[in-house]
């Protein structure tokens, strides 16, 4: 199709891709080389969205032409991400979180208010609208929203908690105040000098200026990298193995082994990637770390690059995290300016640099192989495994990919040494962990506790159940996790105890549902979430998430097909095929929380 870009769109794309070459906007250099820039597709589409408010046919045609990506494929990518719109969208959008923690904090009442004051979701009034959004990773400050302004000066502002005042201000055409939450709110332990002494991963949160490299160094920053250089790659791997550090991104894979596998690959180049996509409903720990202590992630990723033999690292940051992006971008620039990134890091004789890539609204992009596809400018569809990232990762090369929290743990391993690190926690789950406590508790926030701490202790730390008493249920691990009941509060929060209990700690979500909470509503929301976030590639998940939601809605409305038992049997079938035959973890876990609610809590019982 032939559609022309506007001047604004052309400028937005050129700002990402550089000015067009001699071909005057045509495909400049021959096929291969141009196709080699396909990884710039998502950044270019994001730029169009930010400047023009949508990805128009003209804008898409221009990007396709400049990158040599077929328009149908570029459209396939643009239409994959929720933050990109392939239809005109008003320049100012309030993305209102409708997910679990925010529902407990009145999100639906806010949605009703928006409907009353503004009109239906998506309707354009004076260049403004509102849209529902999955969890924005601001659950400690629920109810939350993200205000996105497209135009010459694109702006994105986190707005949490969102009250009537902020809501009215947005609708009146004003700016909403918001941004990074104060450290004592997001991580309550940092406010208390006694509690603070025990913190490791949160040690610097609220204590350092996230914009100052000097301040970071004054608080122990870059000592771990120095140690790593002194130990050498083999030494670092030995420490990680001694530490028995397990990944915090959900799969609990041993980090030392992962780094070693990649370091051993003869194929070059190697890559290291920080998975900062954090989109599991109820998860916000990585955001708090990145906003308040961004250099920690930069340093840790540099250590990963040094150890795994990679000269390039990527941080894949969830698209809805504008403030973490600002903090990381500043930190990368400062580190580069001072020689902590670049051709000769710290004068230690190795090269390493970092690029930050932003997602655009897709939970599935956090699955490691989907994440690689996303960076490569493809649809964020997971790849079939094997082969695994250690041999065939980003751009098909050996790649280390770790969760942000996992990486920040590496600093502590190198600070105290592997064996000392392993003394904290339990035999199998070493070190401390960050838990994202949200919902009906006194002081929601990120809490750091040794692995193995009992759930009840954690809840006490977080101010107990709001309104007192025992919770009706606790969701562990997020939408891909499981509900436990009030009788399970003695559960030790370690990988092994969770496994024994048939639950998962996942990304550290601990969401509390108080006496008045509506669990049927929560279960329906989880089902809708998976239906929305399935990439659609494989039949068990693409159709299974739909059939699961349909059956749950039938049960909730009382309009069952056959008896309740028939419906439960049908749900069990759907759950089993998703678990057994789906390509990736999304489909494989899409029935977990739903089933735990049915079997442990007797929802629909």
């Amino acid at each position, binding site marked *: 199709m032939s559609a022309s870009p506007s001047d604004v769109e052309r400028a937005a794309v050129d700002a990402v891709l550089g000015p067009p070459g001699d071909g005057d906007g045509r495909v400049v250099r021959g096929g291969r080389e141009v196709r080699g820039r396909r990884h710039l597709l998502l950044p270019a589409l994001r730029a169009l969205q930010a400047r023009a408010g949508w990805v128009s046919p003209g804008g898409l045609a221009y990007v396709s032409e400049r990158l040599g990506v077929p328009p149908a494929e570029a*459209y*396939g990518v643009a239409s994959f991400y929720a933050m990109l719109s392939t239809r005109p969208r008003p320049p100012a959008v309030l993305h209102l979180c409708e997910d679990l923690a925010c529902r407990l904090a009145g999100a639906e009442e806010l949605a009703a208010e928006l409907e009353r004051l503004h009109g239906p979701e998506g309707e354009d009034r004076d260049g403004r609208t509102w849209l529902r959004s999955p969890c924005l990773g601001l659950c400690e400050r629920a109810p939350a929203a993200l205000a996105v302004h497209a135009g010459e000066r694109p702006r994105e502002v986190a707005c949490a908690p969102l009250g009537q005042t902020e809501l009215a201000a947005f609708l009146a055409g004003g700016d909403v105040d918001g941004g990074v939450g104060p450290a004592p709110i997001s991580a309550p332990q940092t406010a208390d000098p006694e509690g603070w002494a025990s913190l490791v991963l949160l040690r610097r949160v609220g204590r350092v200026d996230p914009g100052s490299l000097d301040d970071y160094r004054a608080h122990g920053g870059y000592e771990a990298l120095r140690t790593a250089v002194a130990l050498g790659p083999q030494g670092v791997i030995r420490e990680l193995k001694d530490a028995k550090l397990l990944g915090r991104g959900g799969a609990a894979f041993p980090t030392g082994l992962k780094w070693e596998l990649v370091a051993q690959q003869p194929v070059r180049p190697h890559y290291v990637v920080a998975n900062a996509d954090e989109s599991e409903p109820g998860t916000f720990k990585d955001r708090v770390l990145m906003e308040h202590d961004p250099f920690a992630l930069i340093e840790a990723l540099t250590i990963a690059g040094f150890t795994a033999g990679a000269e390039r690292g990527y941080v894949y940051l969830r698209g809805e995290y504008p403030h973490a992006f600002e903090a990381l971008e500043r930190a990368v620039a400062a580190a580069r300016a001072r020689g902590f990134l670049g051709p000769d890091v710290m004068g230690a004789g190795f090269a390493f640099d970092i690029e930050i890539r932003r997602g655009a609204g897709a939970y599935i992009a956090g699955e490691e192989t989907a994440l690689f596809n996303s960076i490569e400018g493809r649809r964020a569809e997971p790849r079939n495994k094997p082969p695994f990232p250690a041999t065939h990762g980003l751009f098909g090369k050996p790649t280390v990919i770790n969760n942000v929290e996992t990486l920040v743990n590496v600093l502590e391993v190198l600070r105290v040494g592997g064996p000392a690190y392993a003394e904290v926690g339990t035999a199998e789950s070493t070190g401390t962990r960050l838990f994202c406590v949200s919902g009906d508790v006194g002081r929601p926030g990120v809490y750091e506790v040794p692995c193995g701490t009992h759930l009840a202790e954690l809840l006490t730390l977080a101010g107990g159940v709001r309104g007192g008493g025992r919770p009706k249920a606790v969701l562990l691990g997020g939408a891909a996790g499981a509900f436990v009941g009030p009788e399970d509060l003695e559960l030790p929060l370690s990988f092994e105890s969770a496994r024994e209990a048939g639950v998962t700690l996942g990304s550290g979500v601990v969401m509390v549902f108080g006496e008045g909470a509506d669990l049927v509503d929560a279960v329906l929301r989880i089902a809708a979430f998976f239906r929305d976030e399935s990439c659609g590639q494989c*039949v068990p998940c693409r159709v299974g998430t739909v059939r699961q939601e349909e059956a749950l809605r039938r049960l909730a409305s009382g309009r069952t*097909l056959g008896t309740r038992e028939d419906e439960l049997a049908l749900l069990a079938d759907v759950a089993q095929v998703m678990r057994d*035959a789906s390509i990736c973890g999304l489909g494989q876990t899409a029935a977990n929380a739903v089933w735990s609610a049915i079997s442990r809590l007797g929802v629909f019982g």
Partner: protein
Amino acid sequence: MKVPVAPPRRLVEVEIDGRSVRVPEGSTILQACRAEGIETPTICYAENLTPVNVCRVCVVEVEGARALVPACSRTVEPGMKVRTDTERVRRSRRLVLEFLASSVDLSLAPDLHRWQEVYEAHPERFGALMEPAAEGERDGREPGRHVPVEPGTAETVAQPVKIDNDLYVRDYARCVLCYRCVEACGDDAQGTYAIAVAGRGFDARISTEFAVPLPESACVYCGNCIGVCPTGALMFKTEHDLRREGRWDEARQTVTTTVCPYCGVGCNLELHVQDGEIVKVTSPADHDVTSGHLCIKGRFGFTFTRA
């Protein structure tokens, strides 16, 4: 030119359903099953395309693996123990067939009917089928949001046929999203990339950019997508029209094999003739020149001159 002679492939010994089987290294589990005469259903797999392993109807149990694995793409390893006849395997295959049959019009996919019988699929248990979507509605769906259907109805991909050119129609109410047409249009044969998967989740669909009609897209009407489509979603306009008029009758058709006269490449053509008219043109997938793929002249030249 010297043609390199491939060294003979080593044999790998695996166990399938308790039987010991020796197959060449690099074979897939599917190839091993077929060599043993074990019938395995497949939908997205095609011999002339790279496996995308998305339909999951071919899954088997491999000892030591947590989830089931797709037979069509997993290569055998020495000592691998495979089971194709367990309750888990049957249940997954049955559910995959039920999911497809309850959401897609499979009436022109006879293979899938047979498999539904074999696996005792009951797609009707998910409720009454939803009314077809309005024209273009599915093309406009946005990722990450959906309107749930009325309790009791089952969501489907039902929608009107896309007829936007004289050569072939796209009836995406029959699309199982097997990716075959995308592969045939792109890397695996044609290299045109006129179509791709757009959207996400259940709203994922095969589409041109912004769902523009084919004449406005990059399509060159090679018809290779038609050739690989397993469900009749992509169909010669001639066939579509005859079917609509109730005149399509395979019993009365003859198939004549010939070599395409348009150029010197030597593609094999199969001319499907009904009542003295060429109604569709195919090429055998195992033909060493075409692998089943043709260009506009071979595919449509005959029907075109007739029209």
